[in-house]
Each structure stands twice: as structure tokens, then as C-alpha cells.
């Protein structure tokens, strides 16, 4: 694939809106990779794939998660800064998401 010339220099984490409390991975990020998180060096605790989210700062249980500046659900459990935020810890405030195995993100 033809990658654009400045690809390697782009920060791996995207803040989509200033109010957001999650960041989006611009590419696959390996566990242990050193990244810039809100202007500070930070070591990624676990691998995060392209398009997935991680916590911008520590989030308590029931915290409303914001992406694009809009609520996208609430935390089922507390997570630390930089942790992967996904179906295992974030639930819909509307209709539970389902998995192939038949589980849902309802609590």
C-alpha cells in the first residue's frame, strides 16, 4: 500500500473532540509501546487495534463515555488510564450489543 510520507510521524492516538474521555488508535499499537498521551509520555499497558478505544484518564464505574463529544455508553467497571475500553467494560445506554457467542453487554 502507498503510505503517505508523514505516516510514521503521526501520533498513534486520536482525540476526536476536546470533551472526549477516550482516544482512538490510528493504527495497531503494541503493549509496551511508548506514546504521547495528552502531552505526557505513556506506556501502553495492553495491545490496542486500529479503530479501538482506550481511556484518556481513569474512568470510574458508571462514568459516561464521550466520543465525538457525544455519549456512547457507560462504564460497567472502573478502568485505569490507557486501558482498552470495549465490550468487556463499556455498555450501551440504549440497546445491549450482542456477540456471536450469544452474550450481550448488558450487566
Amino acid at each position, binding site marked *: 500500500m502507498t503510505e503517505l510520507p508523514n505516516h510514521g510521524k503521526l501520533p498513534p492516538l486520536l482525540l476526536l473532540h476536546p470533551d472526549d474521555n477516550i482516544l482512538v488508535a*490510528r493504527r495497531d499499537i503494541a503493549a509496551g509501546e511508548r506514546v504521547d498521551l495528552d502531552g505526557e509520555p505513556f506506556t501502553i499497558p495492553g495491545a490496542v487495534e*486500529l*479503530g479501538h*478505544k482506550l481511556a484518556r484518564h481513569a474512568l470510574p464505574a458508571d462514568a459516561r463515555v464521550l466520543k465525538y463529544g457525544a455519549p456512547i*455508553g457507560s462504564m460497567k467497571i472502573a478502568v485505569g488510564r490507557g486501558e482498552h475500553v470495549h465490550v468487556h467494560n463499556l455498555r450501551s445506554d440504549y440497546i445491549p450489543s450482542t456477540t456471536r457467542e450469544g452474550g450481550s453487554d448488558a450487566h
Partner: protein
Amino acid sequence: MTGTNTASLSMKGFPRKDGRKGIRNVVAVAYLVECAHHVSRLIVQKSGADDVHLIGFPGCYPNKYSLEMMQRLCTHPNVGAVLLVSLGCEGFNREQLRRHIHASGRPVDLLVIQQSGGTTRTLNAGLDIVKKMRAELAKQQTVPMALDELVVGTVCGGSDGTSGITANPAVGRCFDWLIEKNAACIFEETGELIGCERIMASRAITPELGREIEACVDKAANYYRIMGYGSFAPGNADGGLTTLEEKSMGAYSKSGSSPISGLIKPGDVPPRGGLYLLDVVPDGEPRFGFPNISDNAEIVELIACGSHLILFTTGRGSVVGSAISPVIKVCANPDTYERMADDMDVNAGRILQGGELDDVGREIFDLVQAVAGGALTKSEALGHQEFILTYKQFEPIGPACLPAA
């Protein structure tokens, strides 16, 4: 919509009796019950022509929605002629459909398999009819066509965490520019806009329309709750999306930033340029199952609303096209693009690698005009002509839904 002043050099259309113009001139072969599907498919396959498309309705029980949808689809501006194929005993009102197509000025013929004498005789008769129809369509001339005569629909399928950052907002830019030129643009799937209802309502051109939009998203949320599933597939989660409202926010960005001019239902053609929301969720208590069982069911409804072409954004990677209207695939995810480039018309994933949103939006805008001018999309060239139509029930839209009509 008229617009000889802004005629684009590249765009041309086949003029139809109702004033609309087609960017393709397709012969549609339409089965009116599943029992006539195979014979219809044989006619399409053995015709050996890319511009002969298979459409149809599988059910034996009559249904107002499916008759209206077939009427809209068979008189879509991209359709030049129609061959109807009936088994003979099904409930579909084939005579009304034939009269409707005939009144539109299009060549139409009907074969009833039980009367024609079975598979082989119907096939041979069908091939003869299609050949004559194609010869007749080949004589038709195109005329210049302007952007304000164009209807463009958008749909997303196989969304992931990149969709709402790259492909969807790029389509939104394209929509904004098309609407500036007074094209009609349609976005849809109210069940995938759950969580965006208040933001959308604030963009409506009247407060009454805003209330209708909120009510129709409430209807969708209620419907999906009863069905037990939101419009959220396991692949969405594999790709980083966690919740329905997160997927919604990403999908919503396809609509761009124009005011919302109306709320329409399947088969309603936008009365003029502007941005329209298509309500695809049936009215009343859930009756016939999920609102749209797969992406192509949404595409068919966008086409029934007059969409000349479809902008399909995908993150995980869809390969589908459609009968009747070309599908332009905008790939959101750079890794998916790398794996499936043969199926993708636009690589919007490059936005994640430093590309500009406006550049991708401009590429889509230019491609819309090229495809309207006759250029084939990837899915067209690969022979994708998916089509699906199922049972549904709708009430007509209320007066507040089209304030400017």
C-alpha cells in the same frame, strides 16, 4: 428539479416521461414470487448482457408495501424496460404492476410460467423479449444532466472504529457539496441513528419536522428493543465499535452538515434538492421481522426513493453492489483497503495516515459525477447486482415531514 443551467459536462441521462433522467438504461427482469426466481435468473444469465438486472419479491402473500416498492423500482429512472415473470397462482397484483409500468412509457411484458408451458418455454420467450427490449433501448439518446437532477443515497455496512473518522465524514463533505448544487441526498437507517435524535432534530428546517425525526428514532429504538437486537453486528465489535450509540454517531456523520429538509419513507422521492432522512423502520407493532435484514435491503429502499447511485461506506469490507443503481464503495479502514482494493472505489482510510478529509470528499464528489456520466464502479465491473425485498408495513408520511413540499 430542473437545471439546464448547471449541466455538468460529464453527466448525461436517459430522459423519462415523468421528467426524471436515468444514468443507466437497464432491462429489469422481475420475479413476482420465489417460484419464478429461477426462471427469471436463467433469463438474466442467458441474456449475457450486463445491463439486464434481476429483481423480484419472494412472498406469495399480497402486501401493499412490496407492490408499491416494485412499482417504484420498475419505474426508477435507471430502468428502461421491464419483463415481469409470474408463476401464475401467487398473490402479487401483477396486472396493477404492469399497468403502472406501461403508464410510465416504458416497454413492459409479462410472462406467466403456468400459461407459457413451464421453465424452458418461459425462458425462451423471455430471452426473445429481453433481446427486443435491449434493441429498443439501444436507440434511446442521452441528454445533458445537471447535479440538481441527481438523487444520491448513502448507506454503511460492516462499520468499524474507523468508519466514523474517515469514510463517513468524507461522504458527509460530498453530501454538503452536492446539496450546495441542489442535488437531493438521502441518509437512512433510523435504527442506526439511535442516540443522535436530538442533534438531528436541531438540524431540521422546522421544529415540527424536528419532532417527527425524534419520534421516528424513538419508534426505531422501540422496534429493535422488541426484536431483541440492535442494529449492531459482531463484526462491528471486532472492529472496535462497542455500543449502538457509538456506531450511530459514526454513521450520522455521513449526513454532513446541511439542514435536514424532510423525513421520507421507502418509495417517497425527494421533491427537490436538499438533505432527507429515510425512515426504514416499519410502522405499527413489529410484524414481519427485522426492519432490514441486510445492507442490500436498505440499498433497495434508497433506490425506491429515486437514488441514481449509492455511496456505501465500509470499514470491515463489504463487496456488494446492487441491481438498478451503481454502488460506489468508500473504504474507511486502510488495512481493509489493502486487503480488498479490487472491491473499493475510494480509499478513505488514508485520512488516518495523514490524508485530508476534504481531499477524500472531493474524490467522492468527482466520482459521483463520473459514475453518473457512465463510468463503471468496481462492484458494477465485478457483476455485483444484489437485490433483496421483504415484507413490511408503513403508514404514509405526515404533513410535517416535508415542510417545503
